[in-house]
């Protein structure tokens, strides 16, 4: 109903504001004078706030209902098309593109109890199309909360399509203890396809429990399993790189394809070096070190200036593994840094590099004779942690270092490496003037055991 506004009466010398009932529902305030009292300003603000809240609520509500409708339409498209057809895949793509606002409805469609009442579907195949599509979309949206609902759908009561899609989605969402446990349970399934998908899902969670399943598939003669294993390793991104690199180095029937996958993963990792998320940059750098392809050096070199410590160290370690001097220099420079955190990182990463490639043994031995006691101390630590047996003589020399900390770390390293012919020297060090040195000399003797 349209109301007619009465003319507003202005009292002389009293500028007023008036609230027009016509706009009551909209909360619009009509100002009628050139000056306002404090009260009127407050009232105006209140009305304006109410109006804005109302408008935002309406906007939000309409956006939500539009998205819900969009999701419902796409779910119908899933139900109306066979799995893997272009239209079905298009619906999955569009649901994934909607992202988190679609997740609630997608999770609901995983549950068999959903298909009752207004959501009833006469055909089991319709449920399969919906459940499989919902799982595929959820795997791309990656909502953490979906894992439990997905876990429940990977058991034998569901079709292979549903199980595989849910297993894949659990892996894509990433580590979650219940998800990992559910996938591990599927490693005992009778169907090798399910076992393989579960193993790939586990790799995506940075665990290696099912790696034998992937290896068996790659060494077998079932082309479908080989294809799935290769694709799974490629999808596993940096988490799959240690296994992928190992498989690619071994002899086997699919080496050429494995090398191709390594190349594809490497390209992916290089592009991820520019990722916004530091964890992605860090893990990508580390994985590139594992692959050891020097063509990735440029991207890694840039990361030596990264604002994030761990990214810098991972990039340096990757470069060092490739025997690139910039990476090695970075780590050795950090070894003599005053900041104990940077030194600890340097020890950790140099140990990794030495263990994986042996690329820094020479520099470590040199560092034992460095002028910097921090450098000598750190080098001794790394040589011990990496169990470099060729360093025994140099470490024995370092046990006579003027600095107690260097002596200490050299003794610990000798205890870790454990050569048998150093007992006399260690016995002598038990009488060292520094109590810490003598303590660790005794410890190292214990490590060598009774002879």
């Amino acid at each position, binding site marked *: 109903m349209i109301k007619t506004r009465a003319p507003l009466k202005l009292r002389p010398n009293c500028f007023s504001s008036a609230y027009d009932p016509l706009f009551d529902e909209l909360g619009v305030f009509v100002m009628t004078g050139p000056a306002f009292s404090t009260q009127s300003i407050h009232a105006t603000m209140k009305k304006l706030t109410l109006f804005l809240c109302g408008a935002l609520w309406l906007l939000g509500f309409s956006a939500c209902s539009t998205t819900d409708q969009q999701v419902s339409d796409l779910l119908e498209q899933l139900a109306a*098309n066979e799995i893997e*057809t272009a239209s079905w895949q298009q619906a999955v793509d569009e649901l994934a593109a909607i992202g988190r606002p679609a997740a609630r409805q997608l999770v609901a469609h995983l549950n068999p109890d959903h298909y009752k009442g207004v959501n009833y579907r006469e055909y089991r195949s319709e449920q399969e199309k919906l459940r499989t599509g919902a799982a595929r979309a959820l795997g791309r949206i990656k909502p953490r909360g979906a894992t439990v609902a997905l876990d429940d759908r990977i058991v034998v009561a569901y079709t292979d399509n549903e199980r595989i899609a849910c297993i894949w989605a659990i892996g894509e969402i990433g580590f979650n203890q219940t998800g990992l446990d559910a996938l591990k349970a599927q490693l005992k399934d009778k169907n090798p396809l399910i076992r393989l998908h579960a193993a790939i899902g586990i790799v995506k969670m940075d665990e290696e429990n099912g790696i034998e399943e992937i290896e068996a598939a790659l060494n077998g003669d079932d082309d479908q399993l080989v294809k799935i294993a290769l694709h799974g390793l490629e999808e596993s991104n940096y988490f799959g790189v240690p296994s992928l690199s190992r498989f690619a180095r071994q002899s086997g029937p699919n080496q050429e394809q494995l090398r191709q996958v390594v190349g594809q993963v490497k390209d992916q990792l290089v592009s991820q070096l520019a990722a916004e998320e530091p964890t992605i940059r860090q893990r990508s750098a580390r994985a590139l070190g594992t692959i050891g392809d020097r063509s990735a050096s440029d991207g890694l070199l840039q990361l030596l200036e990264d604002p994030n410590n761990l990214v810098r160290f991972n990039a340096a370690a990757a470069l060092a593994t490739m025997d690139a001097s910039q990476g090695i220099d970075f780590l050795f420079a950090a070894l003599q840094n005053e900041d104990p955190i940077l030194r600890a990182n340097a020890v950790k990463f140099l140990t990794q590099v030495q263990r994986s490639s042996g690329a820094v043994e020479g520099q470590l031995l040199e560092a034992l004779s460095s002028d910097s006691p921090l450098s000598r101390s750190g080098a001794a630590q790394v040589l011990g942690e990496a169990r470099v047996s060729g360093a025994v003589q140099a470490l024995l020399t370092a046990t006579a270092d003027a600095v107690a900390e260097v002596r200490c770390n050299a003794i610990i390293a000798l205890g870790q490496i454990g050569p048998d012919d150093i007992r006399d020297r260690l016995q002598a060090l038990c009488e060292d003037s520094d109590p810490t040195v003598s303590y660790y000399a005794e410890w190292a003797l214990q490590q060598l055991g009774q002879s």
Partner: protein
Amino acid sequence: MKKSIFLHAAALLLIAAICSGETPETILIRSTLGNDLSGHRRADADLVLSAYYEDFAGYQGNGNADPRAWSVLYEDLDGFTVALNKKLSTHRYETERTLPFIHVRGKKAMVTSIDSGKVVDRGTGEVRSIKTRRFWTLRKVEEEWLITGLVEALGDSAQVVPEADANADEIVKLLLREKQGWEDGDAGSISGLFDEEFIGYDGYGTIKPETWKIIFGGSEELEQWLDKRLERTSYKVDRRVVFTSVDANQREALALTSEKLTTTYEKGDAAPSIDRYVLWTLSRRTGDWKITNMCYNIGIDN
């Protein structure tokens, strides 16, 4: 003190019930079916009848799980009351009841029970051992669960069935009208054939009610589903009514249809089809026949 002991005992019972998979609804349903049993044991017809809803109907399963062997036993509560009073006056019931299966959805439930024990003829003293399986449907009215349907002597497997016929013309016509509603995409004409409180089940291809699920609890829910479903799909229903059974007063009926259902979609090329049997029960309480129960995919062939 007494109150405290009572509260503790009640809490312990509740915890025990929760641990055994019971819910408040299943406890109430057990209580209703307990009243039916106790009433029989005490020959207390009022106690028995307190468990029943006014729109009640019962069927004789004749020891067979195949509905083609079933017939109408009680056309309504009055028929049941007459039979009950007669039974209680002539027989004494010394029976126990277990409820191996209770499925609840909203305000509708289905239950199977096994009664075992003795029935003693009050006149001759003859003792007869019984072991009988029953299928029950219940409806929650306010805070109480009441029995709306019963299949007496339900077999646990399909036995040989005498040649079934479908000669109840009114029932056949109604079921063919229902089919036509599907093919016309007319939700209103379909839902209008259903009783307001009807229960819809999916049998998932088995004949055992323990594996069935309630999918619709009333004609309103069915209509909502039909509105949504028929907006986006088209149906072809090749239906044949293979069995009907109607009581002498033409008030209660059973039917079985065999049909091939094919669906096409507005949004895609899939065209799934399914061959299924559907079990129907119908009542004529207010002049027109209305569908009171419908079970899709009942596993006659399994």
